[in-house]
């Protein structure tokens, strides 16, 4: 079975909500839209206090090429434009909208009928990219990179495949799994749209072995397409990392940054993004809702919700039975790469794939000891780096050494800290080194 060649770990899967079908979440009372929901410059608000908006109406426009529009997922009145605490742990500018009713823009097609690429032969690649841009779609796996930028690769590169990332390697998360079980047709049309947008002839959908029912359904539906192949991958973390996925599916390794995956011919998109692209191009629906997994060992009923963007997480947690008494950490995303959150009032954003409620026992970090030089972190690192060295040198502020040891290749997956028997905060210090070194490189290049 295919897998990536270097490193990797096997955390417990804990897919508690895998058998729970997608439920439509209730509308919030006040929807909050932080302006920085994507990589790149934050969007600029184009509404003011008191404006009335409908579902699907643009409320903030992209600020530059690497940026994305933000659309209202609710209908109502703009309450204020003020700071709101988002996943970063700081207050950032956001648009608050008081929800009134559920009025959608007329241009959005809400019928459930499947529209394939054959039904719209007039669509060109540029049309698709334009529609994706106008729908404000960003990477839904959590990275939130603006999709239209990825679909406009640099002219000197030649894309050969579109690879859909349905690996969902993070423990606990099941949003992509349920999406494939319930919307396989739409996803595959989305894949064809993405393939057309970058003019490639071959598409892969990569799914990890632990989602056997999803693989079965996708393989059945993909038999209708002759250029889309469903690939089963070994269940290993971080299979869902871009570079690891390309290594596993087409056996090519992306060189160190600043090289992009497209330089080896692959364009990667999350399966949720493919679904959003289908809705945007075929149904004129901008990115206003997404599937969120709300899960946790102490939660009464872990579930998957189809949520409007801007809903506070507390509402979803209440729909699962309320915040348990023994909660230690609330994590936005998966336990390996997600962000620990300050409160439950943080709104669902474009990249919020899950809300994980960790109980106190699971959430507590053990006191770190001396490094025992066992080398388990080196074995676990999927990028072939030496985490113990990067962490120690960052702690000692030896930035030249850290740069020489290729810290910029680190994908911050957390495998090293997961395996360390001495409970050392390896990734905390590696991140510090990485941001410092990237700052040094930036200032060196701008001189």
């Amino acid at each position, binding site marked *: 079975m295919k897998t990536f060649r*270097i490193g990797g*770990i096997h*955390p417990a899967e804990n897919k508690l909500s895998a058998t729970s079908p997608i439920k439509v979440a209730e509308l919030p009372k006040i929807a909050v839209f932080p302006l920085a929901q994507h990589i790149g410059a934050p969007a600029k608000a184009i509404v003011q206090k008191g404006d009335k908006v409908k579902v699907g109406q643009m409320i903030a426009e992209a600020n530059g090429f690497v940026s994305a529009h933000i659309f209202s997922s609710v209908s109502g009145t703009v309450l204020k434009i003020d700071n709101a605490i988002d996943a970063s*742990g700081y207050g950032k500018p956001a648009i608050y909208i008081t929800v009134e009713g559920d009025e959608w823009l007329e241009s959005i097609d809400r019928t459930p009928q499947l529209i394939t690429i054959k039904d719209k032969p007039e669509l060109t690649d540029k049309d698709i990219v334009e529609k994706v841009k106008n729908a404000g779609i960003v990477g839904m796996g959590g990275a939130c990179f603006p999709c239209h930028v990825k679909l406009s690769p640099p002219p000197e590169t030649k894309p050969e495949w579109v690879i859909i990332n349905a690996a969902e390697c993070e423990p606990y998360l099941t949003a992509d799994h349920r999406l494939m079980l319930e919307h396989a047709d739409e996803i595959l049309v989305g894949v064809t749209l993405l393939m057309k947008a970058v003019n490639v002839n071959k598409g892969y959908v990569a799914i990890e072995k632990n989602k056997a029912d999803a693989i079965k359904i996708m393989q059945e539906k993909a038999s209708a397409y002759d250029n889309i192949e469903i690939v089963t991958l070994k269940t290993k973390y971080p299979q869902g990392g871009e*570079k690891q996925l390309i*290594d596993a599916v087409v056996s*090519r*390794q*992306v060189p*160190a940054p600043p*090289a992009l995956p497209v330089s*080896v011919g692959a364009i990667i998109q999350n399966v949720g993004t493919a679904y959003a692209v289908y809705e945007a191009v075929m149904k004129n629906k901008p990115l206003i809702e997404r599937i969120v997994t709300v899960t946790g060992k102490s939660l009464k009923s872990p579930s998957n919700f189809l949520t409007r963007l801007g809903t506070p997480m507390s509402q979803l947690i209440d729909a699962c039975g309320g915040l348990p008494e*023994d*909660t*230690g*950490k*609330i994590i936005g995303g998966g*336990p*390996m*790469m*997600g*962000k*620990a*959150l*300050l409160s439950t009032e943080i709104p669902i954003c474009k990249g919020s794939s899950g809300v994980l409620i960790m109980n*106190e026992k*699971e*959430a*507590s*970090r*053990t006191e770190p*000891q*001396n*490094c*025992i*030089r*066992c*080398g*388990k972190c*080196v*074995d676990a690192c*999927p*990028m*072939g*780096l*030496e985490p*113990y060295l990067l962490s120690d040198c960052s702690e000692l502020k030896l930035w030249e050494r850290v740069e020489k040891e*290729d810290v910029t*290749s680190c994908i911050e997956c*957390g495998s090293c*800290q*997961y*395996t*360390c*028997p*001495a*409970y050392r905060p390896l*990734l*905390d210090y590696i*991140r510090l080194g990485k941001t410092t070194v990237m700052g040094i490189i930036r200032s060196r290049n701008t001189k």
Partner: protein
Amino acid sequence: MNKLKLSLSPHIHGGDSVRKNMFGVCIALIPALICSFIYFGLGAIAVTSVSVASCVFFEWAINKYMLKNPKSTVTDGSAILTGLLLAFNMPSNLPLWIVVIGALFAIGVVKMTFGGLGCNLFNPALAARAFLLISFPVQMTDWPVIGQDFTTIDGVSGATPLAIMKTAIKTKNADILSDLPDAWNLLIGNTSKSLFNDGPIGGGCLGEVCALAILIGLVYMLVKKIISWHIPVFVFTGALHLIDPMYADPVSHILSGGLMLGAVFMATDYVTSPMTKKGQIIYGIAIGLLTVVIRTWGAYPEGMSFAILIMNAFTPLINNYCKPKRFGEVVK
């Protein structure tokens, strides 16, 4: 509800810990421990318990009174492991006060002065064995014969298989090699051959006699993923390269003396061995080669401990130059 906790990812941990690894190695040593008790009787029990107790005591005392650490590090199991390995490097009739001195050197000088667990440059048990060998050469080379119940000062002592090999080399007389026990006997440690020969032949240090028990320990550690197979296998490979068949066959070399114990338990010590697979291969081969060089041409009959100590000094250099293969170096 208590206050929410906040820290950066990852938020889960695999559950591995220093204690698990150290006690795993201790468990892997149990077969060899039982063998040493059977072969050497009470002397073995005495040496082992004194060694472990003094190592733990010295680590606790140094931590508390000299370093004034609020937290004691004896609970992570590394002191117990050092104690066991140190005991395995000594003959069972060693006077107990020498054992205590060895423990003090191993823990106090080799481990704690460098900074405690994870910071020592040399393997504490081996460095202490070398120290004792040089300071008390008579007592350290006075091996008792296997099978005695009380192997203290009154026990009968004899030559080890390696000593026989050394004599053969020195006197350039290969005939004496017929006194060597055959491979099966070396494996299970029955080196006394009192059934077939006149003079009893001594065994060796506590941990050196029963190679089979050590192999069982190796299998246990590999299954539990405590060590990887690279270092033991490549030590054997390295040792096989230089053996001159004229003096002793390769199997005898590998099964005799401390090579088995060294390859499986000493060379694979986390702190003093390289961190990358490439480095471990080079380290293993070099140890094997050096061992045979010292055994054949050096002054001592046993070369394993010195070979490992020499390569310990090279470990930082190996770590510097043997980097793991970076992702992206291979573009197929």
